[in-house]
């Protein structure tokens, strides 16, 4: 006698992690749904706790689960699935924090360079030095508002003076994508500086 759907669902929900993994490898969508449901909120909560904002938590959650399901074929069951998923989540979050810190260091360096007019700083009046400082703040604020990739392209072009082709190679993007990004960010910076200038008058 065939099982009714409700008992099948109850059975699927009660399955162990290992059973679910085996079933998912065989293409069982209901097992996939159960496993995803079982761990999604846990991974998301953990990511949010460490990263403290929704966008980063979503990115970390996506990266974690992508890695989990991509490498599920290699999971042998020596570690519990919980600790395996946690290990991936922890590494994903730590990588994201490292990238953010590198991004922050780059922004601070950009600000320091922008705030320093260069040789002959004593030739500038206090008003001019204040203006440089304000501009640096505006540029830094603008760079924080774009994606890390876009900020990095801007930095590589305008602070490290790299040619477009080299930037494209480093970032694994096309030259057109790099140019388009630079144009967009420059536009934002110019608009922000113009607004700042208008506000300061």
């Amino acid at each position: 006698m065939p099982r009714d759907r409700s008992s099948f669902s109850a059975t699927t929900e009660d399955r162990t992690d290992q059973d679910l993994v085996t079933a998912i490898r065989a293409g069982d969508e209901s097992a996939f749904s159960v496993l995803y449901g079982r761990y999604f909120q846990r991974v998301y909560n953990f990511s949010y706790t460490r990263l403290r904002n929704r966008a980063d938590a979503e990115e970390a959650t996506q990266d974690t689960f992508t890695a989990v399901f991509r490498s599920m074929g290699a999971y042998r069951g020596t570690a519990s699935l919980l600790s395996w998923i946690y290990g991936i989540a922890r590494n994903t979050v730590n990588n994201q924090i490292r990238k953010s810190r590198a991004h922050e260091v780059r922004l601070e360096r950009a600000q320091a360079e922008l705030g320093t007019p260069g040789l002959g700083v004593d030739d500038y009046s206090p008003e001019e030095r204040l203006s440089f400082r304000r501009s640096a703040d505006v540029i830094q604020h603008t760079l924080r508002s774009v994606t890390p990739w876009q900020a990095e392209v801007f930095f590589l072009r305008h602070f490290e003076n790299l040619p477009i082709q080299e930037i494209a190679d480093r970032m694994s993007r096309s030259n057109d994508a790099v140019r388009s990004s630079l144009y967009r960010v420059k536009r934002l910076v110019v608009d922000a500086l113009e607004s700042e200038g208008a506000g300061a008058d």
Partner: protein
Amino acid sequence: MAEDAMMDFSIEELREFLQADLLDVPVDPRFKERLKRRLWELVERQVRDREPNPDD
């Protein structure tokens, strides 16, 4: 990713992960559903790629 590398963390860190269960962080349901669909597509592709070619 080697399972051994995944075990390279302390009990405290694992406890941190489990304590996150006590939180009630709101999630955008559209994000959750979109991610689920993408992940299932990934799993399906992997299953298809592992299946033996009937023409072989």
